[in-house]
């Protein structure tokens, strides 16, 4: 397994955990390192507890890992909660004026900083954070100079004086650490690569922009709000109209209106807002107007735990809106995939004139990852499907819902002479005339249902089936979906070191699922274990309903925190030992 270095910074909300976090992320990326970061926080603007983990390494860092190498507690509470995460070789840098050291494990270096003697704390309220940053840099074996550039990027907008003040405070911390603390055994590596660091929400927004989305609207809801923020800040330059709307019912319907007008349009929300959108998704399906709705899942039900992650809305997405209709649902595998997926799902919804749902979650939405900037491709393949955008062709009466073999009927955009028609939410004939109410006719209804549902076959053919990663004859097959991909991968590497071979089936397309292909893969598996960040095994139930497949065991977590690799490793070992078939790991880190 490749070397990584993880830093944990914790404190009360409002103590400035984010700033050193941003600075470290920038520093790592400028050293050509990969990183993965996640902020465990509470729904509170001031107070409470927030804990940011940043893990860096030369190779891709697919998840947050199990432990940390350096702890920077900004208050006593953090010291008490997290000191035990440090193991031999780790260190803890803290303000000895206000924080008492806890009892650390063997080999952990406690690094007290006499903050009030090193900086003027009456002038600078966050001096302890900056001093700790400087000290950390020294202990990581990084030359001080890089920090100046990073501060320039971080505080440059606030003026030269702010940059200089921060540089001098950091330098004091740096020098104090050089004189008083032991550096880490291995200095922080460096490469000549450069990565872009972004959150899943930024990736979803940018991916949407790259896909050609021209209309974005939203009602704020954690953890999806970052999509709105990126869109609002960049929309004018990107040529995207961005609107904050009165509620999520308004959001989905406005997005559908814009889509009918002929542009690609999308929206993002979380479970509660998604619930309000469901009737609209049915309108998209019935009127055959493509729209993309993102659900950044948080722990539910109801208002639930707004700042915690879960994969608990699978059935909500599968059952969103009443009646039968074609839809596509995808769950991005990591933050980079949040970008890549958007043009793909837009192409499908355009080609098949149906709603598309992205099931992201807080872990990806608010986590941050380094990606190769080449991956953020603003020239992806774009396929808008069968659209009529000019009156060039000769036609008889235009039939918006023409019966076709594929089920797809060419879609005329309002404004073109000769193609006036009505799109409707009531069942209709080929020309859009309503066949419900006065015109109810079961034969016509059946023909229209068949037409729409024929699109399902086309959707299935347009998406490649999932593939198995790892040796076919492995001892254990781990099955996951969406955001658990990276953590499962690391757990597999750890299991391999312990002599247990594994492979992995990670599902990205929930609909179309490709049940037959999945069954073929799983029939050959020795022992199948499903990993899900929810209580009831929502994907296990879905897979069973689609394929009759029942896994041998399950690993589930529903405490609001993501899996850590050792959770999966231990659960797999327990299940191989035959002690259980349902493991529910305990999150030992108190966040």
């Amino acid at each position, binding site marked *: 397994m490749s070397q990584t270095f993880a830093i944990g910074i914790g404190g009360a909300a409002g103590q400035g955990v984010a700033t050193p976090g941003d600075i470290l992320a920038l520093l790592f990326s400028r050293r050509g390192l990969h990183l993965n970061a996640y902020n465990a926080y509470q729904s509170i603007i001031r107070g409470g507890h927030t804990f940011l983990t940043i893990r860096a390494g030369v190779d891709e860092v697919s998840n947050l890992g199990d432990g940390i190498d350096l702890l920077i507690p900004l208050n006593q509470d953090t010291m008490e909660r997290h000191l035990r995460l440090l193991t031999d070789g780790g260190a803890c840098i803290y303000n000895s004026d206000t924080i008492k050291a806890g009892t650390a494990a063997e080999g952990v270096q406690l690094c007290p900083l006499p903050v009030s003697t090193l900086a003027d704390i009456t002038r600078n309220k966050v001096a302890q954070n900056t001093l700790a940053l400087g000290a950390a840099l020294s202990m990581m074996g990084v030359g001080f100079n890089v920090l100046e550039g990073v501060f320039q990027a971080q505080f440059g907008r606030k003026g030269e004086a702010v940059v200089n003040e921060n540089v001098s405070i950091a330098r004091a911390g740096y020098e104090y650490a050089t004189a008083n603390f032991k550096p880490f055994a291995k200095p922080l590596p460096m490469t000549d690569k450069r990565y872009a660091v972004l959150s899943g929400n930024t990736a979803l927004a940018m991916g949407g922009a790259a896909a050609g989305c*021209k209309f974005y609207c939203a009602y704020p809801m954690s953890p999806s709000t970052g999509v709105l923020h990126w869109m609002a800040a960049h929309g004018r330059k990107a040529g995207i109209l961005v609107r904050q709307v009165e509620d999520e019912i308004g*959001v989905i319907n406005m997005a559908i*209106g814009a889509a009918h*007008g002929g*542009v690609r*349009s999308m929206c993002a929300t979380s479970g509660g807002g998604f619930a309000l959108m469901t009737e609209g998704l049915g*309108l998209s399906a019935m009127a055959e107007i493509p729209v993309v709705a993102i659900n950044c899942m948080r722990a539910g039900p109801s208002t639930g735990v707004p700042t915690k992650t879960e994969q608990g809305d699978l059935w909500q997405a599968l059952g969103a809106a009443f009646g039968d209709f074609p839809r596509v649902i995808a769950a991005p595998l990591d933050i980079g995939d949040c970008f890549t997926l958007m043009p793909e799902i837009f192409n499908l919804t355009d080609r098949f004139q149906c709603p598309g749902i992205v099931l992201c979650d807080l872990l990806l939405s608010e986590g941050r990852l380094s990606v190769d900037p080449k991956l953020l491709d603003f020239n992806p393949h774009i396929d808008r499907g069968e659209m009529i955008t000019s009156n060039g062709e000769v036609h008889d009466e235009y039939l918006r819902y023409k019966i076709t073999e594929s089920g797809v009927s060419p879609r005329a955009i309002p404004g073109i002479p000769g193609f*006036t028609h009505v799109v409707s939410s009531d069942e209709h004939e080929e020309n859009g005339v309503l066949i419900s109410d006065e015109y109810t006719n079961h034969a016509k209804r059946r023909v229209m249902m068949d037409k729409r549902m024929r699109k399902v076959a086309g959707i299935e053919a347009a998406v490649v089936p999932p593939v198995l990663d790892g040796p076919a004859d492995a001892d254990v097959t781990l099955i996951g979906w969406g955001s658990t991909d990276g953590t499962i991968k690391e757990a597999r590497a750890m299991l391999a070191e312990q002599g247990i071979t594994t492979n992995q089936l990670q599902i990205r397309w929930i609909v179309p699922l490709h049940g037959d292909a999945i069954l073929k893969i799983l029939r050959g598996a020795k022992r199948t274990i499903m990993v899900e960040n929810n209580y009831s095994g929502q994907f296990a139930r879905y897979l069973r309903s689609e394929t009759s497949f029942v896994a041998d065991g399950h690993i589930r977590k529903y405490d609001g925190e993501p899996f850590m690799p050792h959770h999966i490793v231990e659960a797999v070992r327990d299940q191989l030992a035959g002690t259980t078939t349902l493991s529910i790991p305990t999150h030992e880190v108190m966040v």
Partner: protein
Amino acid sequence: MATINITPAKPMVMADFKGKVDPDWCPGCGDFGVLAAVQKALIELQIPNHRVATVSGIGCSSNFPGFINTYGMHTLHGRSLPVASGLKLANHDLTVLVTGGDGDGFGIGAGHFVHAMRRNINLNYFVLDNQVYGLTTGQTSPTSRIGMKTKSNPYGNMDTPVNPITLALSAGATFVGRGFSAEQKHLTELIKQAIQHKGFSFLDIFSPCVTYNHDNTFQWFRPRVKKLEDNAEYDSTNWIAAMEKATVWGEEIPIGKFYERTDLPSLEETEPVLDDGPLVDRDIRVPAEAAKRFVEELM
């Protein structure tokens, strides 16, 4: 706006605006008169039918788009305004009419109604107000009078009715009027003015339900309606005066243009992203220079 000035190749006549099917409203329903007035207004304004979109919710009145030959959208109960807003923002060169009932607009869709007016988006919202739920066979609506007996309130309605005119005025609508289905010439004129107004225009149109509302019938309205246009003193640019007139209800019920202000830009005019023309006409790709900067920001 360009839409209104577009001259069609051949003049628009009544047949051009005739829908694929004839209305299935009950004989004598007030909605027939509103449909006719809208068609006449469009012909008088000579807006080509393919440059018009008619968006509705659900209800008897919301079947409107099916009976007029324009680009039509028949959406969800109460959601016509957000759908129409999205359509307008995607292609602001279209003339967008929004039609529906009192239940659709002031009940289930009340939230959208208020916010659409705040935005001053250039939509033309015509509520076919029959003070009852027609399509669902006669329940109390938000504009039903106190005491009105319906299937859902057999002992009489107890809730104060919404006053659509004061509601629209206080939400910031820049064009507020009231019409009566039976006053064809007056209504056609009002609809024309509403369409020509830049910004949100709202018309509450009395459109009696002959089947389920036996209180507010054509006969009941006829002697009561008094045209504001007949009152030379009335100043429709005076918001306070409009508010006062809007509360008059009883032996006299004012109809006509209550209020119009023309000094506020519409949403499409204020939104810089729309400066370069309708979104639907734009290049689908993000400008290369901008895309490059978006990525660099992250490094």
